[in-house]
């Protein structure tokens, strides 16, 4: 009995001290910038050269010191963040891709910083801002970069083989066939089972939205008609043998960018950086055009990639962290530095039209109006709601589509597998799901 009582006392004590600690940190938070008190923030990110941008902040903000810690990008980083948060030792700030936000929010990893971000909302397009609020009145992150999709193609080889730039997907298919005839070793492009983000972008363009919220109920519609249309389209091209089916971002793919056996790449605004990095010798040979359309005359695109800066719930200095997140992604100088050093395409509207993007990428000397065209395309990006288990859907995509390709089966079954896997996972976890 006595032991039990002592334990109760201990728990009470612990509770009190925790409460006191909460008060302290509360003061710290609420007070914002207390003079002389130096705040240390850690920031997980994978943007190249971001140290230089962070250095700018540190030199102008002596009281809030940010340390950038470079992480590998991908699902593992999300898991690492989840685990760190679970263990009570998350970083103060983290780079988070748009599609990972719902997962992290659902796991209580990210802080709602709506009362700490001022009117940052006005810096971003409504559609972009919506993805960081998850359609609620909370704010879970500040958008950093966006990835509106566009088509890159080898201008020189298109000319050589007498191909025209396709304006619709129908034309794209015809171009793919023509390319195979003119250059039997080459493919117009490849359908990659390794890049779910790419596929989602294509589906977005067609009007898909895989997750939805209705009241307190989720819905999952991975195999909606729009996605089915996209799937069947590519399935047909692969079966016909006019589009390659090897994954992207492999040594083999890199080679095909170099040796001209890949003629086009439906990609996103950040494409020039990848092309320059993997195939420097092809400088000036690529050109960019809007993504082919499903209906002639329309102007729609999807998004591939893009990320945000988020403040974690476990951070002891949320005010300071939010201040940094806002600065990093809206301050003209900071964003310009991100564009220059990190090669991102900013989410900030002002920066999209800013001086950092006034001239075309070095890799596209043949297209001086690159960013003007790009901004026009960016404005047509369709919205998309991500759900709390994007990771599950994405890994299902990789497995199911890879299997379909390996088995030479139509992709429709793979899409259905994705739908079932995603839906079952939500149900299993206890989410309220329709259907």
């Amino acid at each position, binding site marked *: 009995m006595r032991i039990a009582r002592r334990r109760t006392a201990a728990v009470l004590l612990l509770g009190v001290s925790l409460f006191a600690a909460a008060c302290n940190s509360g003061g710290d938070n609420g007070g914002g910038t207390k003079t002389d008190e130096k705040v240390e923030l850690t920031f997980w990110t994978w943007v190249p050269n971001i140290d230089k941008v962070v250095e700018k902040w540190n030199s102008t903000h002596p009281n809030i010191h940010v340390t950038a810690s470079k992480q590998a990008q991908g*699902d*593992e980083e*999300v*898991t690492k963040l*989840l685990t760190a948060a679970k263990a009570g030792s998350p970083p103060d700030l983290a780079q988070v891709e748009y599609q990972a936000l*719902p*997962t992290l*929010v*659902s*796991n*209580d990893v990210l802080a709602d910083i709506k009362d700490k971000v001022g009117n940052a909302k006005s810096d971003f397009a409504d559609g972009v801002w919506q993805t960081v609020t*998850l359609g*609620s009145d909370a704010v879970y992150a500040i958008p950093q970069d966006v990835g509106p999709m566009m088509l890159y193609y080898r201008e020189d080889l298109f000319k050589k083989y007498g191909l025209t730039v396709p304006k619709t997907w129908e034309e794209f298919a015809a171009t793919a066939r023509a390319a195979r005839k003119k250059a039997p070793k080459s493919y117009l492009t490849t359908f990659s*089972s*390794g890049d779910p983000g790419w596929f989602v972008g294509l589906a977005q363009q067609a009007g898909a939205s895989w997750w939805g*919220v209705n009241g*307190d*109920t*989720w819905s999952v519609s991975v195999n909606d008609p729009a996605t089915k249309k996209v799937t069947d389209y590519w399935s047909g091209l692969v079966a016909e043998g006019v589009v390659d*089916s*090897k*994954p992207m*971002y*492999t*040594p*083999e793919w890199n*080679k*095909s960018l170099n040796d001209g*056996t890949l003629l086009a790449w439906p990609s996103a605004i950040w494409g020039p950086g990848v092309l320059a990095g993997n195939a420097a010798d092809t400088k000036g040979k690529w050109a960019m055009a809007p993504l082919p359309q499903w209906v002639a005359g329309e102007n729609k695109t999807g998004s591939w990639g893009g990320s945000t800066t988020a403040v974690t719930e476990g951070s002891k200095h949320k005010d300071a962290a939010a201040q940094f997140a806002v600065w990093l992604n809206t301050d003209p100088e900071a964003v310009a530095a991100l564009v220059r050093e990190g090669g991102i395409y900013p989410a900030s509207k002002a920066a999209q039209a800013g001086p950092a993007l006034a001239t075309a990428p070095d890799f596209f000397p043949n297209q001086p109006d690159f960013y003007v065209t790009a901004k026009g395309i960016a404005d047509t990006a369709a919205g998309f709601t991500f759900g*709390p*288990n994007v*990771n*599950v859907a994405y*890994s299902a995509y*990789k*497995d199911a589509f*890879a*299997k379909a*390709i*390996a088995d030479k089966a139509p992709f429709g079954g793979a899409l259905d597998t994705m739908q079932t896997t995603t839906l079952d*996972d939500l149900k299993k*976890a*206890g*989410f*309220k799901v329709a259907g």
Partner: protein
Amino acid sequence: MSVDATPAGRSRKRTAPNLVPYVFLAPAVVLFTLVLLVPIGYTAYLSFRKVKVSGLGLGKGSRKEIFAGLDNYQATFTDPELWAGALRVLGYGAILLPAMLLSALLFALLLDAPRTRFARFGRIAIFLPYAVPSVVASLLWGFLYLPAVSPLHYVLERFGVEGPDLLGQGSIVGALANIGVWGGVGFNMIVIYTSLRAIPRELFESARIDGCSEWQIAWRIKIPLVTPALIMTTVFSLIATLQVFTEPTTLAPMTNSLSSTWTPLMKIYRDAFVRNDLYSAAATSIVIAGITLILSFGFLRAVQNRAFGSEDQ
């Protein structure tokens, strides 16, 4: 060679149980407990838990960890992918183990044979891949396999032959086993070679005087004497085989033939690191560890007298 029981009873006074060995073992036992046993226990605990989300799962506290009973285990045992993965690993092991161990034995015998030249060079060369991290090994073999960048395909193309896709569905198991052989043969060769060197040389000399050929010596004297080493390398290789993970994981993004659940361990990784479902991963881990335990101890038991016969009995 063999060590009989320490003649403790004879030479040491048996006044009290000797505490020294326990003190000596304490550091190992304590560390082992901290970094392995406790996490294993924790894994076992997690395997009986799961997360329950309520509603949209976006509000605070909408996610609770609850007791799951045997749910995770049931899911593990009824997941066809897991067993398909296990079968694939068996197929992989059926190629890898004999190829690797037999060549390791062969090279060890060659190194030990007096008539082999350049033994020193050979030993270092064959052992060198062991220094290459398996991630790098898989990456570089990937370069050698992928048709567009492979030198093999380059040569074949010169002869007008279309090279096979070594990462295709038909050959992927062999391609992976090859990486395993490449990385592991040197290590096993050294272990076997080390125990070959421990055999007193006089044994061979007398055999040679009796007119035995080197192959006869190898077959009749050397191999029987290094049987314990062979058994242990087999056991350790078997365990490593069942845990195959890095190679397929590294190669997976390069091909359509490898799924994220290609081996059981990859499935565990996917559940834990991609799907953030630590609980399912924990249950599968326990099951896999249990099966590995049974297999390897079963094998050890079957050959025990040979492996430890000299020391334990």
